[in-house]
């Protein structure tokens, strides 16, 4: 049996889904958190049957006529996959809008059960909804739920009702006056009007409100501060700064120090067991595999602290306000306020950030946002920042957060450039629902933190572990599979492969094969940068890194910048490919990111060297030529784009208004 969850954005579908399946899918208090279909098995303790029940969580939609692409996911699933029962999650606080979708769902012939969610909020406001009457008028069961609560949340009753409805197997649509005639005439809009009239008459009968919806509330007073013209952006930067400062400069490192101590004790404990083992194998296990993994896992506390704070941020309702505040600024660079959401999400992992661009309507804005989201350093890049900032700039609390600011600056500059190159200056209207604020749940944030932290450890124990082992083997042997001598490491397979790449990196200040190898393995997963450095330099604790790495702080900063702002990992490139849905855009994005990373590192190293030593660094001329060539190509593209005739005002290429009631009605009428 399959039950699908459908409902308006931000009505609490994913929270409900997590509660009935035990899954930990990301939730947040803004419209558009879920952009793809999620499946999970119903928890046994909620399952009244002996068979397996699959729950399907769908992106939020205001109707079955999709406006943005994530809404199409929902429409396509409901119409093509035909689930056994639909759980329509309805936000009890905005009944009159939510029931519009309900009337559409009721006409599909699939049994519907309404979950009247957030019912604690209506009660708190003193509003009442007559459940029995609502159920009678709609012709389907209505169950009050509070998906955020652990107990007395109405979920067992909801599941029971859904199973019962699925067994019934059919759904009678409520009779909506006038809809039958207009359906025949295929005047969808008039049919929709009839739906709204029907909904209005129901809401008038079942809902008693004590407050007028147009009254100013405490929410609005919060908005006046958080979405203020200039106070808003300032507060946003302040909040982001605070999150990174706490996770990377204060609480995070403090926890990490203790944690790394334990990890090293563990490594030595393992080494003790290896006394009788062949030294090559022991070294592979202890230094290669374990050392590399420990080097990465050691940064877990920083990442967990950041994930915890980000979860609080996403839970309180502030995200939608950030989109509003940033809209006017992002419009100036050809993006939309909505572009800010993928970028904020991208600080945890670029992939969900890139996928979140689906909520952006305008195609160029969506593609540009997907391509630029990786400029926000993700969680996997955090160890790189922490390592280089900690080792080369001890006590400096600026390096970490300023990398995020640099990312923002790059996004702004790049967005202007992309708009120029595409020659597309189209603007789009902005509309976004503002959810109610709520006090963020520490429990939800802790769950989210543990789940993301677990994923990080699992990745370190699988992908990263294998990569470290491979790196260790490649640097231990030469091409004839002889063990390389201690003083001849440059003859190893790894060194000879990475060597030519390192030559290209000389103008950036780190033309050393170990650094080149780490940058290359970084494309598999960015955690590998730290892991590979640990393995190739044979260090795990990163305490006296400066001496081990044999590069100066200017080159270290250049390497940091290069890794943060060059193309993301392959998985993220794949996500970009999927979202922009164009090979040209994908290749363009990767080439552009490579150019940005190289140029920025070049400027950092050569400029820094000039400032500190009064002369340019190695490979200046060669690097300059490369940078000028890249800049030249971009300039030509931009000039071409600028000359492009403005595209004809595109005829509204709206999908024909989908009238979901037509097909079932015809069948019923036959």
């Amino acid at each position, binding site marked *: 049996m399959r039950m699908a969850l459908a409902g308006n954005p931000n009505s609490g579908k994913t929270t409900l889904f997590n509660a009935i399946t035990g899954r930990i899918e990301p939730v947040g208090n803004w419209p558009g958190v879920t952009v793809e279909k999620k499946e999970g098995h119903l928890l046994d303790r909620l399952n009244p049957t002996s068979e397996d029940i699959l729950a399907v969580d769908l992106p939020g939609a205001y109707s079955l006529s999709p406006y943005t692409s994530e809404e199409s996911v929902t429409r396509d699933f409901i119409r093509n996959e035909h689930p056994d029962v639909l759980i329509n999650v309805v936000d009890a606080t905005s009944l009159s*809008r939510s029931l519009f979708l309900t009337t559409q769902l009721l006409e599909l012939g699939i049994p519907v059960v309404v979950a009247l969610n957030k019912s604690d909020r209506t009660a708190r406001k003193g509003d009442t909804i007559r459940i029995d009457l609502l159920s009678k008028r709609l012709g389907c069961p209505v169950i009050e739920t509070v998906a955020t609560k652990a107990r007395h949340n109405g979920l067992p009753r909801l599941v029971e009702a859904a199973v019962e409805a699925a067994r019934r197997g059919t759904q009678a649509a409520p009779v909506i006056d006038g809809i039958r005639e207009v359906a025949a005439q295929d005047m969808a809009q008039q049919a929709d009007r009839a739906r709204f009239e029907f909904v209005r008459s129901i809401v008038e009968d079942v809902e008693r409100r004590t407050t007028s919806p*147009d009254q100013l509330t405490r929410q609005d007073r919060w908005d006046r501060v958080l979405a203020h013209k200039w106070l808003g952006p300032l507060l946003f930067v302040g909040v982001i700064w605070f999150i990174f400062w706490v996770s990377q400069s204060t609480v995070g490192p403090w926890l990490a120090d203790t944690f790394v101590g334990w990890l090293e004790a563990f490594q030595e404990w393992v080494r003790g067991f290896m006394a009788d083992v062949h030294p090559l194998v022991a070294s592979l296990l202890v230094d290669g595999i374990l050392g590399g993994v420990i080097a990465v896992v050691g940064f877990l506390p920083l990442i967990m602290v950041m994930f915890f704070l980000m979860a609080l941020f996403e839970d309180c309702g502030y995200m939608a306000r950030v989109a509003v505040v940033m809209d006017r600024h992002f419009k100036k660079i050809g993006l939309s306020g909505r572009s800010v959401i993928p970028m904020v999400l991208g600080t945890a992992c670029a992939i969900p950030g890139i996928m979140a661009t689906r909520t952006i309507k305008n195609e160029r804005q969506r593609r540009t946002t997907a391509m630029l989201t990786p400029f926000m350093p993700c969680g996997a890049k955090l160890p790189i920042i922490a390592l280089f900032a900690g080792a080369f700039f001890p006590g400096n609390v600026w390096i970490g957060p300023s990398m995020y600011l640099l990312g923002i600056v790059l996004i702004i500059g790049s967005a202007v450039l992309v708009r120029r190159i595409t020659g597309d200056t189209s603007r789009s209207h902005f509309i976004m629902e503002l959810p109610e604020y709520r006090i963020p749940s520490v429990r939800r944030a802790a769950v989210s933190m543990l789940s993301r932290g677990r994923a990080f450890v699992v990745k370190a124990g699988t992908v990263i572990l294998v990569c470290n082992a491979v790196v260790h083997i490649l640097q231990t042997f030469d091409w004839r599979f002889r063990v390389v001598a201690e003083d001849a490491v440059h003859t190893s397979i790894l060194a000879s492969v990475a060597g030519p790449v390192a030559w290209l990196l000389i103008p950036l200040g780190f033309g050393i094969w170990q650094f080149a190898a780490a940058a290359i393995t970084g494309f598999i997963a960015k955690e590998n940068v730290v892991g590979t450095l640990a393995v190739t330099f044979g260090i795990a604790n990163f305490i006296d890194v400066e001496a081990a790495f044999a590069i100066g702080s200017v080159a270290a900063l250049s390497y940091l910048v290069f890794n943060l702002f060059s193309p993301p990992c392959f998985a993220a490139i794949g996500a970009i490919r999927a979202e922009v849905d164009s090979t040209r855009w994908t290749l363009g994005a990767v080439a552009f990111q490579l150019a940005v990373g190289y140029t920025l590192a070049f400027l950092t190293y050569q400029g820094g060297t000039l400032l500190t030593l009064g002369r340019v660094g190695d490979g200046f001329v060669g690097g300059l030529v490369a940078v000028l060539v890249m800049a030249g190509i971009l300039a030509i593209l931009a000039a071409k784009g600028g000359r492009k005739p403005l595209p004809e005002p595109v005829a509204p290429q*709206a999908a024909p208004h989908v009238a979901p009631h037509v097909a079932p009605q015809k069948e019923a009428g036959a």
Partner: protein
Amino acid sequence: MALSRGKLNTPYVIQQIHAAQEDLRDFLFTLGCYPGEKITILSKLSGHYIVSIRNARYSIDESLAEAIFV
């Protein structure tokens, strides 16, 4: 008149939506924003209009507020 010239906290009845894109009009429709419905501006923030339509709050930008006639 365009909604962008409307006063705060005054319920207006929507007369017409002047949006070029048909899909945007359809989308607004599904929110209950169509001729004959009520709309109230609650505040103006950061160049945006915070409006109340059918008990829900939305933030719309200036250009959209200019396209909604009340």
